[in-house]
């Protein structure tokens, strides 16, 4: 820092206190060019295949376009967006509700379960290692495969209904009743997701000061009080990260839906991502698909940044403790 500052103020030769000799001007310009060159490959790939597509998405979202190369997109202004909000054929609002239900219920349950299990599994022991592996393993399976697996287990003739029928005499319409199917989907998503947050909470618990917990206990605090006043405040940054990561992955649920219900019965389990990929895009409504995609990205960004902003005080408090 100082090297740069003196260079700007004091001309070409500063007192030779610092070991690296000041490079001549041409070399500094060369250095800056080199800096640029080193970021270039990453920038080209990232801009070309992530940033420009976002630009395309924004542009197409204002057009009517069927994606056929010989035809060009036709400017329609805000039509796609008003269509999403008014939903004249009432096909999209249900997927908004489905996605909201998955995101809200899912992130609450995932974080509650993950935190509870993290508290039970935080100590190092062979039993706990096995426990962590068992709780986490669904996450290493692809979401599509998780969907297919549960589809085979919960279908009308699946293994679980076979057992229920054998013992009670009737079956549960896990996947065939629209209302039940949504709960089934949420349950399966939670089953596959919470392991990630569990690992985050276990890592977070390791940073909580053991002396502070011990001191509180010696002062006569109960377990609940220790958790409430010591552990939980210290976990604040972990909670923020776990909440944001779970929310982001729940908002884009698609593969698991494809495997489990394929959006059905009817449109009862169609998520917003399913709407984009398997309905709008599959029916060549590129403009509409892009408007839906832009909306999802905006919502995801607003949610993540507001959570992080709201949690800033709690996060700062945690730093003060540790």
């Amino acid at each position, binding site marked *: *820092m100082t090297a*740069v500052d003196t260079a700007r103020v004091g001309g070409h030769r500063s007192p030779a206190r610092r*070991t*690296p000799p000041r490079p001549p001007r041409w070399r500094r310009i060369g250095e800056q060019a080199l*800096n640029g060159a*080193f*970021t270039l*490959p*990453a*920038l080209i*790939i*990232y801009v*070309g*295949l*992530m940033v*420009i*597509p*976002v630009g*395309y*998405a924004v542009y*197409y979202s204002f057009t009517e376009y069927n994606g056929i190369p010989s035809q060009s997109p036709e400017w329609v202004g805000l039509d796609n967006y008003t269509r999403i909000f008014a939903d004249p054929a009432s096909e999209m609002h249900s997927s908004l509700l489905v996605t909201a239900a998955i995101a809200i219920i899912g992130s609450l349950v995932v974080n509650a379960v993950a935190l509870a299990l993290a508290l039970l*599994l935080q100590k190092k022991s062979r*039993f706990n290692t096995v426990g*962590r*592996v*068992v*709780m986490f*393993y669904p996450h*290493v*399976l*692809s979401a*599509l*495969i998780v969907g*297919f*697996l549960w*589809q*085979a*287990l919960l*279908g009308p*003739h699946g*293994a679980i209904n*076979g*057992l229920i029928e054998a013992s009670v005499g009737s079956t549960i319409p896990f996947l065939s009743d629209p209302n039940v199917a949504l709960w089934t989907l949420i349950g399966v998503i939670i089953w596959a997701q919470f392991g*990630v947050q569990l*690992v985050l909470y276990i*890592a977070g618990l390791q940073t909580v000061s053991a002396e502070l917990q011990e001191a509180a206990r010696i002062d006569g605090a109960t377990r609940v009080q220790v958790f409430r006043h010591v552990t939980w405040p210290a976990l604040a940054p972990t909670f923020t*990260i776990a909440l944001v*990561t779970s929310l*982001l992955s729940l908002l*884009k649920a698609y*593969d698991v839906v*494809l495997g489990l219900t394929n959006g059905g019965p009817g449109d009862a389990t169609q998520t917003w*991502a399913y709407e*984009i*990929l398997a309905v709008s895009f599959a029916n060549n409504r*590129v403009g509409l698909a*892009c408007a839906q*995609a832009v909306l999802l*990205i905006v919502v*995801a960004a607003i949610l993540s940044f507001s959570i992080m902003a709201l949690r800033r005080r709690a996060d700062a408090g945690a730093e003060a403790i540790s």
Partner: protein
Amino acid sequence: MNKTRRTSNAIRVAALSVLGIAMLVPLYILVINAFKPQQDILLSPLTLDPATATTEFLEAAWNSTQFPVIDSYLFTLLLVVACNVVSIAVSVPAAYVIARTPGLVFGIVLMFFVAGMFIPAQIILVPTIFVLKAVGLMGTIPGLVLFMSATMIPFTLFIFSGYIRMLPRTLDEAAMIDGASRLRVIWTIVFPLMKPIVATAFVLNALSAWNDFVSPQLILGPGAEHKTITTGVYAAVSSYSTNYEVVFPTLLLAITPILVIFVIMQRFIMTGLASGAVKG
């Protein structure tokens, strides 16, 4: 005191055991039913009679033309390696420059990359297809690898630049004075010190590439010559989803290796995930 602690630990172990078994039941049903004909699966899904167990359906799934097992594995492995090589190779020098150059410009560059972490890959895929078409990479393996790498770069670069900031500057300055070029400093001095964080990035990127379904399905197309494990499973299972003689053996073939890898490397994978998130 001691007694209550022991009871509470017993309750803890019991509760965790019940839940753990519940977590494993789906896997158990999947494994045993891969060795049974449809009739047996429907009648007694929880038991396996060794007398009637057969590998017939596993063999059929192994020889399926929809999901060519060996080919799909090799192709998925290729994708995992290629995406990691590309995203790590371009992220290291960029992260080095961002971490080591003071000033606003590279701070903004970092934020620009970080913003990409909030863009879900499968959501941005629709417009990406038009970009890939425009540059002639649609339907090609390089196109797929570049797109998947692009989705990995923001996170990889972010954790790399955070890590390089913690490395002492004196190391690379000393090498620079000795006349080593910048590129040499990055790859022979800084990169070897980054082993733990590179491993973290590798694990997380490998997991996401291995399990990605939408990108290969849409970029290569459903009728593509090469299938990944996920697109292969989709082709083999989606139209036969109530034919459990097909579903269970196919899924078993698709998950066994990744589960074995996971169990062997569980500590590494889970700490990688945790440290990635803490740095992120």
